């Protein structure tokens, strides 16, 4: 069986799913089912092939001549690419199904077909990215992914916020691509070929390798959303349609991590400083990400900041593994890398689940402002259950999958204590992050789903099966990995061994997988029993509105809001968050109606990126004179260049003799 060809079929199916949907009319729903069917079929093909390679079939390579002269396309599917292909195809297919109900063609005649076109290109680009063995092809796939993301963010191009977010994203992604171009140019000069092959040890000095490593960290980090390079991320993920946000957050960010991992396989050197850099960047991203998330009252922005946090956790695992390679500690490598990789899967699963449930909330209630929502657990039972499950998973609580991957990283950090006690500080940061995440999701779930309905949410209705079937599959996967982590140990071991190229201790001997299963099953049984007992005990009690608490005339405005829940933390950490607060004007004994508005904008975007941007615009304003937009001007520039080239071909001494 040729697994690589099967993956390729999946890629082509996704690329064709959009054009197939364009065959139908703008206002009919028929062809969107064809489009989603093609996508799901391709996703299944790709998944089967990726699983086969992940569970032990040998790596395969394929090369064929491309249209450009003297270029061949080299593809290879190995354990690492198979590992990243699984979330791409899983979430890609599930989101396509979700889009059937969430972005119905008949309701969005203008944008529906466009959305599916770029969505297919995005998934195809990401899948190709994992396979490319040649830097030119890699960049082409990277740009396919980057450009299609731009069009997806700007799907609702009538909204200024979406356009603004898309432009910021476009600048950020091209900045990253620029660095990657430099990176691959350096690699080309060193190795003499566009093929991405490991550099032989001793050929290149440690300084140049560090330059390559830093270029990769910043270039890919812009895509992954490492603090402080995350500034484009919250707005972009908040403004895209929800199933696109799920894919961007759950899968596309991980392509940045994949890029860093891929470049690390090329470099032989492992100075400890690299590991420490990634570890501290990861800790900073995790801590600041969750802190900023706490301050948000837009449901999707909140989730987007949690992506920054989780990318930080992933990076901490990677940093630990790198440090282990530098210090020759195989236990650190296997635990760090297994945590990093498993968290890539896990975050993909639960963050997509959360974004899809958030989408269901938006679909049902029509807003994503947390302060306008409330009491949705009564009208949207299924969505509420899925959101709760996703929240528990993202907080790293047993018996769900987030717990398993974070446990790997904890265990790895504990192993470092004997040698580098200072590193246990990062374990403390990780614990702090977990606690803050739990606080943040208490706020998100509590304000959105509990209590009584606020302004808009009393009209909310539950979504249809095309929305909750994908959510259900994601939720089941979260539970499965959480209860039976033994299932994923083999692939993790396989990928880590392939990535590091060393013989490593067995993951099963380091991680109490059986214990986690028993504990998880016990917990689920206990929770089930508790719920049943509570139901039984309360079977005759009267159900009244929440927070009624004996008031005579309770109002929905008397509940905690998202802002009030987070207020204590916001005031305590004011300097880090810099909340903006409009002055409350109250005058007179019987004050009239008044308003208070607080907002926490992204500090990196507001205080660093925007001032630099304005300064740059000011400095480059002189250049705008050259861009007049008239054809005559541009032709004149061409003429000038032609003249210059002509002068270049003539020997200058001849010219001199001719003229004088």
């Amino acid at each position, binding site marked *: 069986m040729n697994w690589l060809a099967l993956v390729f079929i999946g890629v082509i199916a996704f690329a064709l799913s959009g054009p197939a949907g364009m065959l139908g009319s703008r206002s009919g729903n028929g062809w969107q089912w064809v489009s989603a069917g093609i996508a799901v079929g391709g996703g299944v093909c790709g998944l089967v092939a990726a699983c086969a390679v992940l569970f032990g079939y040998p790596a395969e390579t394929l090369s064929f001549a491309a249209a450009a002269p003297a270029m061949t396309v080299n593809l290879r599917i190995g354990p690492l690419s198979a590992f990243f292909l699984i979330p791409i195809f899983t979430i890609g297919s599930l989101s396509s199904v979700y889009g059937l109900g969430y972005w119905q063609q008949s309701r969005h005649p203008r944008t529906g077909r466009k959305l599916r076109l770029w969505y297919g290109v995005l998934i195809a680009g990401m899948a190709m990215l994992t396979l490319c063995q040649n830097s030119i092809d890699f960049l082409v796939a990277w740009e396919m992914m980057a450009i299609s993301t731009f069009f997806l963010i700007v799907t609702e191009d009538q909204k200024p916020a979406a356009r603004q977010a898309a432009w910021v994203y476009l600048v950020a992604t091209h900045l990253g691509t620029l660095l990657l171009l430099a990176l691959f140019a350096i690699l080309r000069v060193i190795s003499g070929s566009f093929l991405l092959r490991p550099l032989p040890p001793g050929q290149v000095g440690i300084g140049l390798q560090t330059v390559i490593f830093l270029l990769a960290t910043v270039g890919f980090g812009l895509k992954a959303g490492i603090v402080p390079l995350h500034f484009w991320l919250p707005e972009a993920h908040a403004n895209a349609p929800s199933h696109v946000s799920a894919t961007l957050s759950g899968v596309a960010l991980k392509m940045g991590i994949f890029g860093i991992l891929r470049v690390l396989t090329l470099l032989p050197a492992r100075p400890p400083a690299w590991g420490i850099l990634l570890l501290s960047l990861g800790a900073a991203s995790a801590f600041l990400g969750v802190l900023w998330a706490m301050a948000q009252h837009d449901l999707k922005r909140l989730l987007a900041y949690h992506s920054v946090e989780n990318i930080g956790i992933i990076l901490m695992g990677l940093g630990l593994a790198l440090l282990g390679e530098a210090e020759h500690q195989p236990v650190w490598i296997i635990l760090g890398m297994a945590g990093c990789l498993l968290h890539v899967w896990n975050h993909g699963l639960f963050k997509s689940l959360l974004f899809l449930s958030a989408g269901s909330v938006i679909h049902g209630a029509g807003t994503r402002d947390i302060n306008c929502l409330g009491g949705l657990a009564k009208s949207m039972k299924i969505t509420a259950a899925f959101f709760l499950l996703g929240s528990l998973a993202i907080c790293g609580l047993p018996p769900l999958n987030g717990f398993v991957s974070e446990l790997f990283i904890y265990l790895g950090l504990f192993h470092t204590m004997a040698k580098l006690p200072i590193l246990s500080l990062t374990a403390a940061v990780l614990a702090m992050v977990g606690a803050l995440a739990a606080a943040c999701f208490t706020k998100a779930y509590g304000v959105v789903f509990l209590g009584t309905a606020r302004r808009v949410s009393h009209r909310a209705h539950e979504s249809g099966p095309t929305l909750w079937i994908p959510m259900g599959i994601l939720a089941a996967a979260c539970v499965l990995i959480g209860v039976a982590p033994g299932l994923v140990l083999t692939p993790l071991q396989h990928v880590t061994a392939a990535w590091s190229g060393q013989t490593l201790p067995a993951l099963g001997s380091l991680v109490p997988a059986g214990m986690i299963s028993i504990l998880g099953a016990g917990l689920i049984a206990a929770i089930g029993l508790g719920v049943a007992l509570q139901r039984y005990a309360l079977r005759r009690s009267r159900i009244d509105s929440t927070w009624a608490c004996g008031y005579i005339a309770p109002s929905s405005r008397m509940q905690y809001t998202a802002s009030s829940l987070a207020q204590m933390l916001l005031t305590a950490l004011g300097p880090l968050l810099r909340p903006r607060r409009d002055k409350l004007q109250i005058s007179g004994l019987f004050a009239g109606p008044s308003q208070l508005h607080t907002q926490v904008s992204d500090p990196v975007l507001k205080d660093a990126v925007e001032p630099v941007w304005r300064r740059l615009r000011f400095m480059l304003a002189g250049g705008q004179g050259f861009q007049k937009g008239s054809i*005559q001007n541009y032709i004149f520039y061409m003429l000038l260049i032609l003249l210059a080239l002509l002068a270049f071909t003539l020997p200058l001494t001849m010219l001199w003799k001719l003229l004088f």
Partner: protein
Amino acid sequence: MIMILNAILVLVILINLFALGTSRMKALIHAAALQGVLLGLLPPLVVKDVGTLPLLMAAVTIVLKGILIPNMLLKALRDAQVKREVEPLIGFMPSILLGAAATAMALALAGQLAPAHSPLGLLVIPTSISMLFTGFLLLTTRVKAVTQVIGFLLLENGIFVFGLLLLSAIPYLVELGVLLDLFVGIFVISIIIHHINRAFASQDTRRLSSLKG
């Protein structure tokens, strides 16, 4: 042979200067048509043994550049009701002088370029460069859409003359393909001119910048 070739090339240069100096668009189109016919005579003159292919190419060139393209442009002119180029960015007299200067420079410098020492004599390269500059001058200093198309046409004619040197190296198929491209390009442009005229009530290409986002 060389004598006839040189005579035609001199005529072609004179037509260039005329094109730079005239403000009447009809005259400009007629000049371009005449130049196209003259160019069509060239391929059979420069090859050693005149077979079917050079003759075919001559015929296609004359039909396209001498008849079809000028007729399309004249029709576009009639539709648009424009007769004169009224406000060139550089006046007509300075344009002629610039064109003459460019031709003189081309004649002086072309001897230094490698392909100049061909058996076809010394005039081919300078003529081609001079035509390129004429085309560029028209493109950069005139604002009406039809004049721009003619500038483009003269530019392409310059490339055609340069291609004569390489007739043995470039397959005829390529040359014919280029001609076809030119025809299709101008066909499309003449349709666009019609639309520009309808949308802006003017043929001034500077107004197109208002289409910018």
